[in-house]
């Protein structure tokens, strides 16, 4: 693997500078950078050194891989993505078995300390046998691969926070990458799956600026996860005016009113769905008429029903309230009885 600059690589593939400019204009938009920055991003990408990327798929559903590769369309992002020499991707690469492992070890040795480790899927701890590659448990493989990595990108809520495998009761003891690796910078690109351009955007940002981007409190790039869906949602004016859809088919829903009362988790979910949107900017869940289910947040699966509004809380049932009343009554009756007994010793007298 020779040291190749991304710009030369792209030109070698017949990618004109205008194509690169088109990508950078879109990237600037995703990263909420001013559009005029496209030129600078292009210049930086061209000069960036083409890093080597090891992609380790652990306990995952391949949703993230599919999201990034967008098997059905070969787009500009995928070109850029190819620019990143993807040395090992269990699903994508032709090699298999020992050859694949051999290629991975080869890539790691050559780029030791410099390669980017991309992980998708959570790591089962209950029993390492739950998820292995070529006989090696995910845990061991992660620990080994992480040693030589310059940085780790945890792609998808599973790798970032444990995701669905870690949802109650978490039979496999699934944990996130950040639970295991403490000594390497980790970029969590959460989402189930993350928006394709966000993954590419994070990689482009890493290429462009060559450093770990500014991360929020959960280790997610602030460029893409800095604002809540609610803050950038086009239906926000309806929320402010108190116009809410009451059911999925009522007048409010058809008029595109706010979906808060139908369980939208937009206010507590941080992602770029409302701006970058999905399927090439076509739409995003709320625009399609369904509330956000908060898939970029930890434990989104256990945060109450997807159709239960944020303000609903489990105060119990009329049964539990009745039981509480019974307990209270028992205590009250006992207290009054003892007090009456004590008063009975004093002579009967009318208080005015």
């Amino acid at each position, binding site marked *: 693997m020779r040291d190749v600059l991304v710009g030369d690589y792209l030109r070698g593939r017949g990618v004109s500078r205008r194509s690169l400019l088109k990508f950078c204009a879109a990237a600037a938009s995703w990263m909420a950078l001013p559009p005029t920055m496209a030129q600078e991003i292009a210049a930086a990408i061209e000069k960036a050194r083409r890093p080597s990327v090891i992609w380790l798929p652990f306990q995952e559903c391949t949703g993230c891989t599919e999201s990034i590769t967008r098997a059905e369309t070969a787009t500009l992002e995928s070109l850029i993505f190819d620019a990143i020499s993807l040395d090992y991707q269990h699903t994508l690469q032709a090699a298999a078995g020992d050859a694949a492992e051999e290629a991975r070890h080869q890539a790691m040795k050559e780029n030791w300390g410099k390669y980017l480790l991309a992980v998708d899927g959570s790591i089962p701890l209950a029993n390492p046998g739950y998820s292995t590659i070529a006989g090696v448990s995910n845990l061991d493989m992660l620990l080994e691969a992480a040693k030589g990595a310059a940085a780790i990108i945890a792609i998808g809520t599973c790798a970032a926070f444990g995701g669905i495998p870690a949802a109650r009761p978490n039979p496999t003891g699934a944990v996130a990458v950040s639970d295991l690796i403490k000594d390497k910078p980790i970029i969590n690109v959460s989402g189930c799956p993350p928006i394709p351009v966000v993954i590419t955007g994070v990689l482009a940002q890493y290429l462009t600026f060559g450093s770990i981007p500014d991360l929020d409190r959960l280790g997610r790039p602030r460029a893409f996860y800095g604002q809540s869906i609610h803050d950038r949602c086009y239906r926000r004016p309806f929320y402010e005016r108190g116009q809410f859809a009451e059911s999925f088919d009522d007048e409010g829903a058809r008029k595109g009113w706010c979906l808060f009362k139908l369980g939208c988790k937009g206010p507590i979910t941080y992602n770029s769905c409302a701006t970058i949107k999905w399927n090439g900017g076509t739409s995003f869940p709320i625009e399609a008429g369904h509330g956000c289910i908060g898939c970029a947040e930890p434990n989104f699966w256990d945060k109450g029903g997807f159709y239960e509004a944020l303000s609903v809380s489990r105060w119990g049932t009329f049964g539990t309230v009745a039981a509480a009343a019974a307990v209270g009554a028992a205590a009250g009756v006992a*207290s009054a009885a003892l*007090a009456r007994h*004590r*008063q009975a010793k004093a002579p009967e*007298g*009318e*208080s005015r």
Partner: protein
Amino acid sequence: MSATIAATEERAALERIAEGVARLASSAPEVDLPADERVRRAKRVFIEKTDARVALDLESCLHCGMCAEACHFYEGTGQGRYAPIHKLKLLRKVYRRELGPFRLIQRLLTRDLTVAELEQWQELVFDSCTECGRCDMICPVGVHLSRGVHITRQALTAAGLAPAELRALDAEQKSTGAILGAGVEKLRSALEELRSQGIEAPLDKPQAEYLLLTTASDLLIYHRSLAATARIMNHLGLDWTFASSGFEAANSGAVSGDETAQRQATQRVVDAALACGAKFVVVPECGHAYPALRWEGPNQVGRAFPFQVLAISELIGRELESGRLRLKPLGPGKRVTFHDPCKFGRKGGVIDEPRKALAALEVDLRETESKGTTNYCCGGGGGVFFIGRAAPLRNAAFNIKRKQFDATGADSVVTSCGSCRMNFAVGAQRNNWNVPVESLVELVADGLAAPGPATDRGSVV
């Protein structure tokens, strides 16, 4: 006896009483008890008196302070400690620590009652509270504050901490049954005086439908009020009598909180009524006597009364209502205002009858802004008149009442309670306020059509 001579005699008599009151404190029996015994006795009374109704009072207070805005002692002095709910603090503490639902927690979080607190609360529940009940009218959640004050009085008295003057009055009534020396001989000489004026005044008739009570203030100072009451009873042709065994309406124990004194005084009146088979007991112009007998009497003696208790103004109202009594107008220009004695009005329920009498007399009644159930107290009720050190407080309250009277532009104040009249007299002298204070009963007597044989009539239901 012409009015002016009588008035000067009343003022002289009042001076003699005032001197007697000043000496009361020294004659009070000393109550020497160890501190923890005082606390124990006080707590026993608090516990005995706190029933479910009082508990609901103590569980609902918001500490909003509105009761203070209704209290003349706070309004007159601006002292925050005179807020009525503050007076109930000891009662609430004992309730929360001994009877309340969370008493186990309260015992950990709060300190027990101390004798220092009991002593500190003397001024709050005796000197600065006439138990007039005006605060009960304003409380936004309906706490019966004056009841709480009285329970605290009963607790302090049980602990031997009532003011000396009230202890002296209790001792006197417990031993002689009389107040301020107005014993049976005083009654006999007063009745002789009535007879000398041609007013029939039966005493100890074996059988009588009405037992009439009188009180020390009428026997010692306001003889005209006694005369007027007798003339009204005769004019109505009622079968009535006094009873030497039970003539004193005033109940010192009901004021100080000494329940034994209260029970004895009540028992004396009940026995006298039973002795002559009375169907009615008429309470004269003495404020606290009415609720003490009418509302608390049955509970003191432990059973309902076989007779009905009527205030003299209530009787007058009833007779006017039934048409058996007609009064002649006392002249068109007589502009009066009426002072509702708290114990008759707010605490007793007798509010409309006096006004019926004044209407029958066709006087020009100018009501004060606060009247009836929200009237301002004269400042001397509930025994406060007798407590020496409470003089400044009484004066502050008196001046509020005076402003109410002056605002009406009336020429005189009519009321129907001896204590109020004594307190107004002292207040007027101290603040040289010369508006005369008249007795309702005396006005009604002046308005009687003509003294003479009562028309034939059956016994009154």
